[in-house]
């Protein structure tokens, strides 16, 4: 297996996120910066360091689906919005309102909404007009720290320290409705990823679960347990849903492959490989949107892009 080491952050790297073109990778760190890396001649080069927004750790980073925007969430309670100006990403606005650390940021598929979530138990939805962002809604549906959020088109899912997943949908009377799912994780839900009608949740209970999004509910399909002995902080589907990867506090990454479809049409995933990835906790894994490259980052301050040879 090939692996490229992207080394420049001075402290733990919290998240990595791919640009929709699959060529640029964003990373964010406790060193208060976001770094952008571009694939040039088969090597990743640091092309930009964004350091003018956050005064504390940057916890989350995410590109919009059209690549026009980049959002960041920090422990300083600020959500940063950056825009591509033709040659680089520029900070266009700092969104304030969260009472405590922001843990996740995510763009809706049409880029109309930006969601942020945090320790103050809320999910904030921001919209924009003429590139000016303002708050659309503040949703306090979780009882505890909201660790992650993920859009499926214009429906939003959040995962929390309260062990539940909540789904938010925009209702007719200008309000966002929500529904809570107790999906039988025994502990914090650290990440959510979605591929078509599949939802992948990873948890501090050392398991990952796959659900089918159907009939307004989350139907459990599979639980992956016994592969990691520590919390699983991140999960990511490959662009075609054929694989997903998990990153854990045990320093390992596991990769699962869809190996069967049952009589009801639901996929089954089996372990393809598991390996030591870093010196310390794996905080985030992210499959490239165009191929099987897997980016990952760690408490050991490193970022690696793996060519898993799948």
């Amino acid at each position: 297996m090939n692996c490229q080491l992207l080394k420049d952050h001075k402290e733990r790297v919290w998240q990595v996120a791919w640009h929709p073109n699959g060529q640029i990778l964003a990373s964010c760190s406790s060193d208060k910066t976001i770094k952008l890396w571009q694939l040039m001649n088969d090597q990743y080069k640091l092309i930009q360091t964004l350091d003018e927004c956050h005064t504390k750790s940057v916890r989350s980073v995410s590109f919009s689906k059209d690549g026009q925007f980049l959002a960041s969430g920090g422990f300083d309670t600020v959500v940063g919005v950056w825009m591509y100006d033709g040659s680089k990403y520029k900070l266009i606005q700092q969104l304030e309102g969260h009472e405590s650390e922001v843990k996740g940021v995510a763009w809706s598929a049409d880029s109309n909404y930006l969601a942020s979530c945090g320790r103050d138990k809320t999910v904030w939805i921001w919209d924009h007009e003429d590139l000016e962002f303002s708050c659309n809604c503040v949703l306090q549906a979780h009882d505890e720290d909201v660790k992650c959020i993920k859009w499926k088109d214009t429906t939003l899912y959040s995962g929390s320290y309260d062990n539940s997943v909540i789904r938010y949908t925009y209702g007719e009377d200008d309000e966002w409705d929500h529904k809570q799912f107790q999906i039988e994780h025994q502990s914090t839900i650290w990440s959510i990823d979605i591929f078509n009608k599949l939802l992948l949740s990873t948890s501090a209970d050392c398991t990952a679960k796959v659900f089918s999004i159907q009939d307004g509910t989350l139907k459990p399909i599979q639980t992956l347990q016994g592969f990691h002995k520590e919390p699983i902080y991140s999960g990511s589907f490959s662009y075609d849903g054929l694989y997903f990867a998990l990153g854990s506090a045990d320093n390992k990454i596991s990769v699962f492959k869809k190996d069967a479809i049952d009589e009801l049409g639901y996929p089954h995933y089996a372990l393809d490989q598991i390996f030591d990835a870093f010196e310390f906790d794996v905080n985030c894994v992210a499959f490239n949107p165009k191929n099987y490259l897997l980016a990952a980052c760690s408490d050991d301050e490193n970022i690696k892009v793996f060519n898993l040879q799948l």
Partner: protein
Amino acid sequence: MFSSTIKISSVSDYIIPSQECIKPLMKNVKLQLDDPSIQLKPNLIKNQNNVAKVSLQDCLACSGCVTTAETILIQTQSLDEFLQAIKKHQNPAIGISPQSRASLSYVLNFTDSEMHSILHQLFQELNVKLYDMSEYVKIAINNSIQEFKQTKITPLLCSECPGWVCYAEKTLDESIINHMSKVKSPQQIFGAILKKNHDYIATIMPCYDKKLEAVRQENSEDINIVLSTREIEQYIKDYIQKSQITPQQIQLSTMAINFQEYHNISSNNYLDYIIQSTVMPNWTVKQNIRKNKDFIEITIYNEEMVLQSIYARVFGLKNIANLISQIKTKTCKYKYVEIMACPLGCLNGGGQIQIQKNTEKANDLIPKLKDIMISQKIQLETTQQNEQEMYLTQFKHIKNESNFQW
């Protein structure tokens, strides 16, 4: 989310999982509430063993320690607590806010004045003197008009709402807190005045955050206890069922005004009186919706349609956030903003009686409560005098402080 946390001296590492907290202050507090819609979360510590440990992970995930959660504070201001306390005092008093009374009237199916007379009878039997808070709303409004006339601060932000105040103190810089009106809320003015003649003072309010307002150091415990409308509903219902009540039509007064389209009585009309104090005859007042119906801009034009000033009424956290961002980027053009934490204002407060979700929505209910608030009352006027006693408060700047103590 709005309320601050209380900090009690050091929390020991081991908390025995039980219904009662080990801290002396909390000894008599039962952690079970009758109202199932109020959720207490004593089980914040995830542990399978007999002894619960608080780990760093738990602490970092939590935004209020188990022993310091406002839910426990709120519990110490319960109906039971009130009923016990009034027996131990010679001269207790209770004030009812117009929003709470409107909510009770609607649900229990009485007119506002009948409701007040029933409450008067109920509390009289408990040796508690009932007050209508309208006179104290009047003082707060008069003080606000005077402050507005004398201030150089723009925008001046109404600070009657404790939810907004707690949020501001926790998350905003001193530079913005300096924009906040220093006038005490009607509840606090009520306490400051009544404590001369009463040894125990209670209020009935449409939200829980008023309980936190009452315990603020700046308010020196003038108010002993705050009950939300919901907490007292059942007690009143039971009383009505078992007593011989003869509800009377008594004359009530009000500061609520609802003559103009832009008037909104839900949170005591602060903005409308401020505007009224600046508008001359033949001037035009126009309102427009900015972003949503809880963010209203009101523009004043003189007789030649030259723009004089702009004001705003901002309800709900999402709109507050947008207003704050205007103030921070210095694009805020309002002279005075009536800010309230609850969408639709105090009539829709978190402590009001909830109507079943399928039968009535807030948008339909609130206009009905407004009608109740305004109907058949003697209109109180603002006073023109320049010299009036000002009831003022202070704010904390706790955004970056790690050791905040009440």
